[in-house]
């Protein structure tokens, strides 16, 4: 048959329409699944704990359920631990949007079990991963082009988040700001369509009630802005404590022997059970308690204690490798911190102030901005879940302060830092190359000379004397260990006689990824010892090539 250009064009147009319909359907499916997920958690939690659980039950339920989820997470669904947002970002940026079907299924099951059994974690991060996963699976099943499959990931994520929080605007912003990492992304149309479709369906089931009911709070006196600024600073510090604590505790758990991995969620379950015995208020998602803080129903001492306990409990639950997010806990910690500050300000400030509930509301935003590090999303998220427009100005001030403090002392956002611990280096907006730029991958030498880590220092020193460069890569192509310098080899061979192995000297040096633009390469090359390894983003130990000053001059002038 003869294919005229007009037929081909028609087909393209049809694929466009198909994608639009698919966007709506994906948005709806992601949204419904998010609703189902949250309802399932409530049901499981109710079945496991009842209305007023006994101490024995509080202690036993998290432990016993975590033993089951530990086995599931280690043997059946190995890649569904934690929040799901960083994993979704990694899938979007590094795997072309491919998410295996077992991820959304596994996340649903383990998420319901972990959060339902009292672990102090949120349901929104998992919802995002489930939504994005279902979108990716549907895209591949339909045989869409790789670019379209990748595009569906943020679409599914936006649909899921819109329904999980009843926040259509914040969901779109989150998909652009966090998942794609570009507020000007051309995908804004698709994410808006998915978010709207999802929210309409969600509201037809749950009604258009905001997540939290709050009285209308407003700025009572201009001087109050100073109090909100202080709250922003406190929020920033609390965010830092959370991020640093989480990363350090996770490192601790990861250092345990690999054989214990199957039991680690249960260790977390035991500790959570003990905390629940002291205060059941930190259980699960905990929005009931946030609601009370927002409505001024808690004493400041209670709020302070809950703030600290929730922080510790969430770190334990997450670091021990359970499945659940950090959205809800950050809102909880923020509401309690803000509420406590609010009571104190209300009592001692020399000017008229708003209710403590207003501070709890702004506090939620500060922790969200400081931990999740998506400043636009955090402002709109708080505005949408409370539907209180009046508080927007203090919210913006406090969020910005918290964000700046958190960024100053924890330059890598926690989601990316968690991926770093797993050896995955996401591209950040600062180091992402424009499409036209030449990158490290273009100019690198694919042939790299490596020193075997099993070589003795003496032998390596002999070899090094004939080399041009003063720094050497140690390891194999599939497992680069790091670098060693000529001085290190000389000193060590003189000192110990040189029978020890080279691997004992290796330090994890500076590196670039193939997609880094040349100015990043030049910058890093000047900080390195003269040899810059180029490593994969998906696995930082896989060597793709190397760059020296020589290659830089030779190759970039071509």
């Amino acid at each position, binding site marked *: 048959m003869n294919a005229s250009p007009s037929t081909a064009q028609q087909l393209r147009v049809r694929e466009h329409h*198909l994608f639009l319909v698919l966007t709506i359907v994906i948005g709806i499916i992601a949204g419904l699944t998010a609703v189902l997920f949250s309802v399932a958690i409530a049901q499981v939690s109710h079945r496991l704990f009842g209305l007023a659980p006994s101490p024995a039950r509080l202690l036993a339920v998290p432990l016993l359920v975590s033993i089951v989820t530990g086995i599931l997470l280690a043997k059946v669904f190995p890649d569904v631990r934690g929040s799901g947002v960083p994993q979704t970002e990694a899938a979007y940026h590094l795997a072309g949007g491919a998410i295996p079907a077992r991820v959304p299924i596994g996340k649903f099951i383990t998420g319901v079990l972990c959060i339902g059994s009292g672990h102090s974690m949120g349901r929104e991060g998992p919802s995002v991963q489930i939504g994005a996963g279902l979108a990716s699976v549907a895209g591949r099943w339909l045989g869409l082009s790789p670019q379209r499959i990748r595009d569906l990931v943020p679409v599914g994520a936006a649909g899921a988040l819109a329904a999980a929080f009843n926040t259509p605007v914040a969901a779109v912003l989150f998909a652009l700001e966090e998942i794609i990492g570009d507020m000007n992304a051309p995908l804004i149309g698709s994410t808006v369509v998915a978010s709207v479709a999802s929210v309409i369906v969600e509201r037809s089931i749950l009604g258009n009630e905001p997540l939290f009911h709050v009285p209308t709070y407003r700025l009572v006196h201009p001087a109050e802005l100073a109090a909100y600024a202080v709250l922003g600073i406190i929020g920033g510090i609390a965010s830092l404590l959370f991020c640093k604590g989480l990363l350090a505790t996770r490192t601790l758990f990861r250092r345990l022997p690999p054989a214990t991995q199957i039991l680690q969620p249960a260790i977390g379950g035991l500790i959570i059970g003990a905390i629940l015995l002291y205060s059941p208020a930190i259980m699960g998602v905990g929005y009931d308690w946030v609601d009370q803080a927002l409505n001024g129903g808690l004493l400041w001492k209670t709020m302070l204690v809950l703030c600290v306990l929730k922080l510790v409990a969430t770190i334990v639950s997450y670091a021990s490798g359970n499945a659940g997010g950090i959205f809800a806990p950050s809102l909880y910690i923020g509401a309690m911190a803000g509420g406590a500050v609010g009571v104190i300000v209300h009592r001692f400030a020399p000017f008229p102030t708003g209710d403590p509930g207003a501070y709890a509301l702004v506090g939620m935003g500060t922790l969200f901005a400081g931990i999740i590090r998506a400043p636009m999303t955090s402002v709109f998220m708080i505005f949408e879940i409370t539907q209180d427009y009046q508080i927007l100005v203090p919210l913006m001030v406090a969020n910005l302060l918290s964000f700046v403090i958190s960024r100053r002392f924890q330059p890598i956002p926690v989601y990316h830092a968690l991926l770093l611990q797993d050896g995955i280096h996401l591209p950040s907006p600062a180091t992402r190359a424009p499409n036209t730029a030449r990158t490290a991958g273009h100019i690198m030498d694919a042939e790299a000379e490596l020193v075997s880590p099993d070589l003795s220092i003496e032998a390596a020193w002999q070899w090094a004397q004939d080399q041009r460069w003063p720094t050497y890569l140690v390891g194999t192509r599939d497992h680069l260990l790091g670098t060693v310098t000529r001085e290190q080899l000389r000193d060590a061979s003189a000192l110990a006689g040189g029978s020890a192995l080279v691997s004992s000297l290796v330090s994890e040096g500076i590196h670039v990824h193939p997609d880094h633009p040349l100015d990043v390469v030049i910058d890093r090359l000047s900080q390195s010892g003269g040899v810059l390894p180029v490593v994969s983003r998906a696995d930082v130990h896989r060597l793709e090539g190397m760059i020296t000053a020589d290659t830089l001059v030779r190759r970039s002038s071509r």
Partner: protein
Amino acid sequence: VSLENVPSPNETARTAFLHREILQLAVLIVAAVLLFFGTRAVAASNRRMRLRDAAEWSERGERALAAARLDEGLYDFRRAAALFRQAGDCGNALDQFQRVLRLRPQDAAALAGAGACAFQLGQYDLARRYQTR
């Protein structure tokens, strides 16, 4: 069979491919509809569960008051009110807020909640009285 003998897909094949896509899309839509009704059923049972819980909190509150444990009673009524409101039962939520107000007539949160519930029920005079108290 050598791969070189396989003809490259022409426009007819692509049309057939897109027809298959439309069929698959229909399957997805059916799945979405089924998911909708399933989720709605589970959400409805969740709502009934919340209403039962709310009623139980309210009873607990009454028992606490009968035993002269005021703070506990207040706490229980607040929980009941919040649960009724989440389940969309404004009438009962208003009733629980009023119980709190009988114990603490100037409770800001209960006044705001009662006002909002009365407003939703269309009792605007009552709503105004709560909101301006």
